[in-house]
């Protein structure tokens, strides 16, 4: 609380990002965990809640002509909030407070340590046990004749960013592992990520070897040989370096580098150029600038999108995943994947490949397991990458965001293949940044253990699982062909298949998205069908018994059924309400012209309030009585929980913290 200089500011205006002419007047509150804006309009009292940990930047903008002070808050979940504060002093105080609040220095300051979903100890523990990696390796068929669990890293003695339990070839002795680890960046030795029990092919991961220009390591060579031999059918092993060749070569000068095919027996070495975290960070930055453009033209947008390179990078990651999945599924060849440290690109590529290979990872539970396995357990640096604590801004990069987008791109191509829907991905992304749950804290398993995360915080997976009805894809069916076996995305021509994900990057601009949700509608239809079928069954039974006793009171029951039917429809049929947007933009020349001047040859007349009889100050204001405000999220039954998208709605969980 000591960081809050100004707990409440009145008469603040919240600007609508799409339509700058729309603004709502309200009060701004700063709490220990949230920035809250409450609208003044008495009938709605709409609230906008923003978690401090979601704030990525705060910018004081130039004072407006009317002497007000705009403050721009950009969030990691791609929300952009523009506030106008009447007093300079207040603005500055809010600014200074937020700067500090958005950059906590201790883990203990993060929301998850104060977040209390009112679960008892037992439920909390059960939540953490929902995803169990040992169970997952068992599911893959491990341990077996070739693979075993190794305790070489107990107490994090060999590699502090690896989990304590790693799966390695049976033939790799502790000596080999330790030797190999000394020849790898940050001692991240090759370990199993995915095993395909149908053909013994596997995906292993590591960091780059410290080969420099000529260094060799016998143990490392033996390690790779051991991995190759776990797949007796195949006589070679792919080693995939996910970096651009130039980057990898540059690393050699620093005593790092890549495997020399001559030194390792029977490997095939392959570069797949995915750019590094710095390139990705600036790419996202550029793309978000495009998203933030005020009424851009189609060309502005496409040009900006191309210039950002974002989709190119997404495709590079996907291509690497496709290559590996193909090697494992079609060629039956095992693959060792690394980049530099083996915790960013390697995590992306391994998880994309796993997702393509194994339908289990396309279920909701399986997806949680996948993130837990390839990201959390193998020491993806969540804290550094997503800036949970104040740190080096050069460490921040949207690595997992890119993976999540890859999944979405696949969902677009294979609409029936995933058990979960787009909303699930968006909420996972949100919580990676929210720090509301402990799952993604710190940079490694070791740190999390030291912090006693599992005792002190709650698991996101349990929370999502509890609300899974919201996240189901109605088109998913266990016996559908798309839910079987390996997914094979179209390879060429395919560039046009990669699309801009407005559901994520313009997530809060609801007006941009399809105004009716097919997913929600179909889900409702599905539930309704199920209900009807159940009732039908009950009715059938009842009828049978009724026919025996010859009673005729069935009318009532069937009427109820009618009502049910109607109910189902009305909840599913979202109010189609919407209002016209600004269709007359791009003509900025207007304000400088006086309306009367343009009589002769009005070169750029625009539809504005001046030349309309209407006194409505805003053409695009929602003045339509028949159409309410459309909000997709308000339909979902559990939005009373802690759904992250909520810029509205009182959130019982979060409201608790208002009082702190």
């Amino acid at each position, binding site marked *: 609380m000591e960081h809050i200089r100004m707990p409440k500011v009145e008469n603040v205006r919240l600007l609508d990002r*799409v339509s700058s002419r729309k603004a709502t007047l309200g009060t701004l509150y700063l709490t220990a965990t949230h920035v809250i804006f409450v609208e003044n309009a008495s009938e709605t009292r709409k609230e906008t809640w923003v978690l401090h940990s979601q704030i990525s930047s705060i910018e004081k903008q130039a004072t407006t002509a009317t002497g007000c002070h705009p403050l721009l808050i950009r969030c990691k979940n791609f929300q952009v909030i523009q506030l106008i504060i009447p007093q300079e002093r207040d603005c500055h105080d809010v600014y200074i407070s937020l700067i500090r609040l958005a950059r906590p220095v201790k883990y203990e300051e993060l929301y998850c340590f104060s977040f209390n979903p009112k679960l008892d100890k037992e439920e909390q523990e059960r939540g953490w046990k929902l995803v169990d990696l040992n169970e997952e390796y068992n599911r893959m068929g491990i341990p077996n004749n070739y693979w075993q669990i190794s305790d070489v890293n107990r107490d994090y003695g060999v590699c502090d960013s690896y989990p304590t339990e790693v799966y390695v070839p049976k033939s790799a002795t502790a000596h080999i592992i330790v030797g190999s680890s000394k020849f790898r960046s940050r001692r991240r030795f090759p370990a199993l990520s995915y095993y395909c029990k149908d053909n013994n092919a596997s995906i292993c991961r590591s960091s780059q070897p410290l080969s420099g220009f000529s260094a060799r390591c016998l143990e490392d060579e033996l390690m790779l040989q051991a991995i190759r031999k776990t797949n007796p059918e195949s006589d070679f092993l792919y080693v995939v370096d996910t970096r651009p060749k130039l980057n990898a070569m540059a690393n050699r000068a620093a005593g790092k580098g890549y495997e020399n095919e001559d030194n390792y027996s029977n490997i095939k070495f392959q570069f797949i150029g995915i750019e590094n975290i710095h390139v990705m960070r600036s790419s996202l930055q550029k793309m978000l600038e495009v998203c933030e453009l005020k009424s851009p*033209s*189609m*060309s502005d*947008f*496409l*040009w900006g999108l*191309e210039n950002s390179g974002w989709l190119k990078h997404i495709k590079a990651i996907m291509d690497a995943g496709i290559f590996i999945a193909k090697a494992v599924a079609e060629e039956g060849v095992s693959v060792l994947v690394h980049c530099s440290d083996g915790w960013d690109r390697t995590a992306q590529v391994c998880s994309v490949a796993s997702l393509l290979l194994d339908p289990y990872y396309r279920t909701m539970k399986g997806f949680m397991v996948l993130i837990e396995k390839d990201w959390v357990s193998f020491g993806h640096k969540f804290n550094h990458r997503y800036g949970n604590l104040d740190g080096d801004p050069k460490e921040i990069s949207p690595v997992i965001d890119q993976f999540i987008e890859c999944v979405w791109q696949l969902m677009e191509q*294979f*609409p029936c293949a995933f058990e979960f829907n787009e909303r699930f991905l968006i909420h996972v992304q949100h919580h990676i940044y929210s720090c509301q749950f402990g799952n993604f804290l710190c940079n490694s398993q070791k740190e999390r253990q030291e912090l006693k995360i599992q005792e002190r915080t709650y698991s996101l997976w349990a929370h999502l699982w509890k609300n899974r009805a919201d996240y189901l894809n109605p*088109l998913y069916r266990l016996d559908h062909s*798309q839910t079987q076996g390996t997914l094979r995305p*179209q390879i060429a*021509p*395919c*560039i*046009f298949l990669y*699309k*801009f994900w407005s559901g994520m990057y*313009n997530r809060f*601009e609801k*007006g*941009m*998205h*399809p*105004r*009716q949700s*097919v997913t929600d*509608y*179909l889900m409702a*239809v*599905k539930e309704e*069908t199920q209900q*009807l079928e159940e*009732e*039908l069954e009950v*009715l059938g039974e009842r*009828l049978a018994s009724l026919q025996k006793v*010859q009673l*005729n009171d069935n009318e009532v029951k*069937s009427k109820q*059924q009618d009502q049910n*039917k109607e109910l189902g429809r009305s909840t599913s049929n979202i109010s*189609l*309400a919407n*209002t016209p*947007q600004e*269709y007359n933009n791009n003509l900025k020349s207007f304000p400088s012209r006086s309306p009367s001047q343009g*009589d002769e*040859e*009005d*070169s750029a*007349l625009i*539809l504005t309030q001046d030349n*309309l*009889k*209407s006194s409505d100050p805003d*053409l695009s204001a929602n003045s*339509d009585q028949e*159409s309410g405000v459309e909000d997709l999220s308000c339909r979902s039954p559990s939005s009373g929980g802690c759904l992250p998208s909520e810029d509205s709605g009182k959130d019982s969980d979060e409201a608790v913290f208002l009082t702190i």
Partner: protein
Amino acid sequence: MEFAELIKTATVESVLLSGAGLPPVRGTLCITSHHLLLSSRPGGDGAPGTVELWLLIRNVDAVEKRVQNLGWYQPPRTNSSQRDTRLAGSSGTITLRCKDLKVLQLEIPGMEECLNVASSIEALSSVDSVMMMYPFFYRPQDLRLEAGWHLFPLEQYYQQIATQTSQWRLSGVNRDFAACPTYPPAVIVPAAVDDEALRKAARFRQGGRFPVLSYYHQKNGTVMLRSSQPLTGPNRKRCREDELLLGTVLDEGERGFIIDTRSAQAAKQARMTGGGTEPKSSYPRWKRLHRPLERGRPLQESFIKLVDACNDTSLTMDRWLSRLESCRWLSHVKAALSTACLAAQCLDREEACVLVHGAEGTDTTLLVTALAQLILDPGCRTLAGFQGLLEREWIEQAGHPFHLRCARSAYSHARLKQEAPLFLLFLDCVWQLGRQFPFSLEFGERLLLTLFDNAYASSYGTFLGNNEKERCLCKVKESTHSLWAWLNQPEEKRKYLNPLYSRNALVIWPSVEPQSIQLWQGLFFRWIRSSKYLDEAWAEIQRLVENDDTSVEESAGNRRSQSLSDTAAQTENER
């Protein structure tokens, strides 16, 4: 002219057909007056052939031929050696680029055959006479010639309006196409303006297209009119009747909007060639808004460039986006939707009447008026309502010159004349609306694709000719079948319906942000990418929705059987 004269080779054996996404098949190629057929013989001799290709030759946009001599030696140049050449393996490949954007390849043994086939197809596909088109020869057994032609009479549309207001009348001033050759015989005009005034106003508008009613907004009684540009010319001519006509549309103290689909600059320039705009001084109560929309040649070029980029498989991600940007197609989609929204906004929100025109009033004007109606009027969003809208705003009542605009598609090497894909742009905008409002259109993407195909090459007469006058002269309604008759057959109709449709009485305001506008993959990549997984998803949606319906029916049936058993029980009791 006889078609037979154009066919140099009628059949060729052992032709290899290939196309994107299809396994190549070998068979016999036949050229008829209107079709290209390829039938394969899977079994031995005598087994019935399977027809692998049945292509309307009118659909062919470009023919490219490549001949190669695969022989080992240069054959001696004697008369008798011609056969040897062929045996030695000379062959040719013909690439057929179709108006529906499909690309087919025919590998034809024998150089001479190949050249003959190519020139036959070229000649047949460039027959330009309307009366020689296939619809005049097409006689399906299960359709009646007259069916579907008079489904949407303007009289009916007028009657609807007449129940609400008496300010409009149906005029027969154009009975013999004298006032305006591109208008139908009947038009809806202000009741206060007599035919004589209409005739005079027609002389003041390009092509005689005086302002007529296009849409009556029932909610508030405002109207949308359309016309062509006024012929003010360099001397700023005026026309009292035209001013009167527009004046009577507005009540005392009301103001209206003129949406000019040209830039202010272009409108001004049009004065030099006799056209122009309505000057403020003579139309004081009309506010002019300029919303430039692309048309004509630049629009056709945009279409060509887009299709070119879509077919270029060598593109990287970056190049693809810049090609997509530089062809500007999506910009045109955005501009068309925005302008239509503006028109709709004027009517619905500002409660003001609107007049839409560009230059000729047969292209971008219709794009705007048709889209605005789809946005405003739920009646236009049903399958039948949409057909009616097309008849009113594109075909019968509006006289979009389909024959000129759709003569060639994106592949043609022929010199561009009057081709422009305005109708395709309209269909694309409708698709965008359907994407943003997936429950609000009764029809699905498939209908839009079928309309695109038929506008460019069809067995039906619906899109023939440039206007009603031409269609009358050619007796299109008497001698060809209507596309609607075919579409509206129950088993056919089902394919075009949107299973998610539920009537939405509200105005559907689309988002026109670039993030909300997508490339219509179903059209531009129809023959390039496999849509297997998307089709499966669609089937799944259909299954879910139909399952729901059947279980409802079942429960209804159950109810029925219940009440039956109830009555049975009753009668038993009575007994």
